[in-house]
């Protein structure tokens, strides 16, 4: 507890005791009839005024400052008027009690907000402030922001990696869980990138810094979560707008309630005036909008905080809301639903040639290409003699034409082979095929496939259970390959052979065909499909650790590539939405009920103060449920 809060607590306890004393004296006095003399009333009043000033002094002071600054509907002012009014109508005990309860509520609010602020900070305790840097062969401990790119740092076992760097000496395992939520440590060795915020578990590593502190992974993530408050959801803006009109409206209602009825019922009767003024005071107490205004952002923020502890970064409550309204999820295929690593299934031969020779030729032709399929062929071929004289002409979307050692090689898809007048011999219905021809002679083909990601089926099934009605897959791959994977996984709609801009128009078509204002989420790697991510209602990037482009483009970022986290995020989004609605309905409901009952004179100030701070506290506690995993 902070010092300020402790002071408040002491004040509450002290005034509570004094209030109790005053009440006892008051009642005993009434019972014995001793204090019935009018001469004793000021003494009783003074007895109540002491705890009132102790507990309400601060509120009154702030109310005064508020008036000076022209802040009329400030909550301190409202509480001040309400309690002073209570004193004026002779309800001394109630006046003190309302102020006391109000302060208890305020204190509780403070503690709760402070607590959730802290727990979110703790979730994000990724940053280390110091780094051990090697300069001229000696090690120094310096502030992270003093380390330049290219300098060498030393990370001992157990230490947090302070900056993004590339290992130049040593090997180790690192715990990336703070960033990704993934509990399995990752093995790293010379040449590997290590990310700030991870913990070095194994041995001593030396690494060269690749990014300045401000640009490091950790700084990016932290500022992203902190800035998330800028993308406010509709409910958040609604509630602050609502509060703007709610308070003046209730205050005006209170004024009317105090004046109008007595004018008609009994203009000269002081007890009638007293009754209606008292009823109006209940209105003033209820007119504070804080319960609502505090609980809504708190619910969202708790949700965003708890998500980031699992390696799910959400760039604002607006996206959490939209995700809660999604019923369709569109996936990219390669790298999202599949592992993104191709392997060779089969090599079919059309002529009398050794399969290894076929692979070798294909690898020679493909050796300069960066396409995942080419890389897998080169990998499968093993060592190739790269000194073989080779010139390669890449034919976009088809494959390559290469001249190797004087021979003309064609390596690529159906279209390439047919373009050169060769008739491929292949039943190419089920997967990706790479044909190989040499000097116009068809040699054979290689079947290549990408494995579905482990857990993909379960993840898709759990999405369905979480209420997602339609899943869609987009891929640039051939229809045969795409359909095969899509059907295996149980995807509802499959779009294949799409070029990058084709993916954008596909998602536009899907969004346009949505009914009932349901939203569409897109899941991809965020690197090749940034335009699609931006176009979707909610763009989710997976496996984003270390990829600034992906973090930049997406609305929601999954640091690792675990598909099940999408379900987690949707469940969280829906839970947050539920909590927000519960809070709004509950707070408004109680307030409305007490307003009506108060106007009828059925409940008094005590109920009103409960409707104000009691409801705030309950709403806050409800929001904090969202902090849990």
């Amino acid at each position, binding site marked *: 507890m902070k010092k300020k809060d402790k002071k408040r607590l002491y004040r509450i306890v002290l005034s509570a005791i004094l209030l109790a004393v005053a009440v006892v004296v008051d009642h005993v006095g009434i019972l014995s009839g001793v204090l019935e003399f009018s001469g004793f009333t000021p003494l009783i009043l003074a007895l109540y005024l002491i705890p009132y000033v102790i507990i309400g002094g601060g509120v009154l002071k702030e109310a005064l400052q508020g008036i000076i600054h*022209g802040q009329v509907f400030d909550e301190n002012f409202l509480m001040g008027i309400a309690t002073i009014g209570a004193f004026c109508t002779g309800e001394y005990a109630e006046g003190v009690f309302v102020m006391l309860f109000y302060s208890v509520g305020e204190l509780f609010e*403070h503690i709760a*907000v402070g607590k959730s*602020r802290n727990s*979110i900070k703790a979730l994000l305790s990724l940053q280390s402030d110091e780094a051990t840097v090697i300069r001229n062969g000696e090690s120094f401990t310096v502030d992270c922001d003093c380390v330049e790119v290219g300098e060498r740092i030393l990370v001992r076992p157990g230490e947090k990696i302070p900056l993004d760097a590339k290992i130049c000496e040593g090997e180790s395992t690192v715990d990336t869980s703070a960033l990704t939520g993934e509990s399995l440590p990752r093995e790293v060795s010379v040449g590997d990138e290590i990310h700030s915020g991870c913990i070095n578990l194994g041995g001593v590593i030396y690494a060269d810094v690749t990014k300045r502190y401000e640009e490091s992974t950790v700084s990016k993530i932290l*500022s992203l979560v902190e*800035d998330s*408050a800028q993308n406010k959801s509709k409910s958040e803006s609604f509630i602050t707008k609502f509060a703007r009109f709610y308070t003046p409206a209730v205050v005006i209602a209170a004024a009317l309630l105090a004046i109008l009825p007595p004018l008609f019922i009994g203009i000269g009767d002081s007890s009638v005036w007293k009754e209606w003024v008292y009823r109006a005071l209940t209105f003033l107490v209820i007119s504070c909008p804080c319960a609502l*205004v*505090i609980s809504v952002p708190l619910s969202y923020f708790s949700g965003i905080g708890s998500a980031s502890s699992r390696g799910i970064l959400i760039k604002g409550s607006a996206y959490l809301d939209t995700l809660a309204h999604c019923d369709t999820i569109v996936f990219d295929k390669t790298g999202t639903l599949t592992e993104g690593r191709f392997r060779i299934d089969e090599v079919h031969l059309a002529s009398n040639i050794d399969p290894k020779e076929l692979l070798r030729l294909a690898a020679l032709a493909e050796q300069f290409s960066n396409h995942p399929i080419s890389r897998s062929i080169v990998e499968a071929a093993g060592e190739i003699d790269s000194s073989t004289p080779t010139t390669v002409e890449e034919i976009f979307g088809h494959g390559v034409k290469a001249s190797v050692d004087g021979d003309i090689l064609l390596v690529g898809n159906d279209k390439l082979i047919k373009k050169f007048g060769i008739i491929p011999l292949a039943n190419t219905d089920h997967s990706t095929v790479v044909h190989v021809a040499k000097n116009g002679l068809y040699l054979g083909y290689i079947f290549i496939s990408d494995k579905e990601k482990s857990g993909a089926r379960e993840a898709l099934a759990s999405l369905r259970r979480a209420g997602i009605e339609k899943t869609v897959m987009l891929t640039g791959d051939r229809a045969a390959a795409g359909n095969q994977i899509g059907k295996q996984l149980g995807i509802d709609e499959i779009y294949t052979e799409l070029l990058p801009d084709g993916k954008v128009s596909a998602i536009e078509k899907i969004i346009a065909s949505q009914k009932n204002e349901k939203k569409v989420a897109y899941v991809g790697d965020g690197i090749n499909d940034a335009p699609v991510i931006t176009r979707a209602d909610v763009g989710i990037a997976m496996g984003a650790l270390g990829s600034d482009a992906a973090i930049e483009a997406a609305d929601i970022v999954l640091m690792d590539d675990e598909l099940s986290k999408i379900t987690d995020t949707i469940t969280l989004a829906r839970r947050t939405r539920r909590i927000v609605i519960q809070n709004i309905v509950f707070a408004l409901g109680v307030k409305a009920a007490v307003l009506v009952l108060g106007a009828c004179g059925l409940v008094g100030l005590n109920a009103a103060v409960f409707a104000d701070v009691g409801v705030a506290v309950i709403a806050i506690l409800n929001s904090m449920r969202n902090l849990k995993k």
Partner: protein
Amino acid sequence: MKKTFTLDEVDCANCAARMERKINEIEGVISASVSFMTQKLTIEASENDFDRILKEAQKVVSKIDSDCRIIAK
């Protein structure tokens, strides 16, 4: 240009909302947002105006909550 500041001691959520609205009304502010939870104030405005806007923002903030200070990061 966008800058983020820490708002020390923002005590009530409604005050934060009011600060946001008032700061948005300052001349030259393109957009401003106050986050009660993270205690952050973000102002977007042109570079030349920033000092003046910041001073006015501090005035607005003090009016709503006298304990509250805008602190540059």
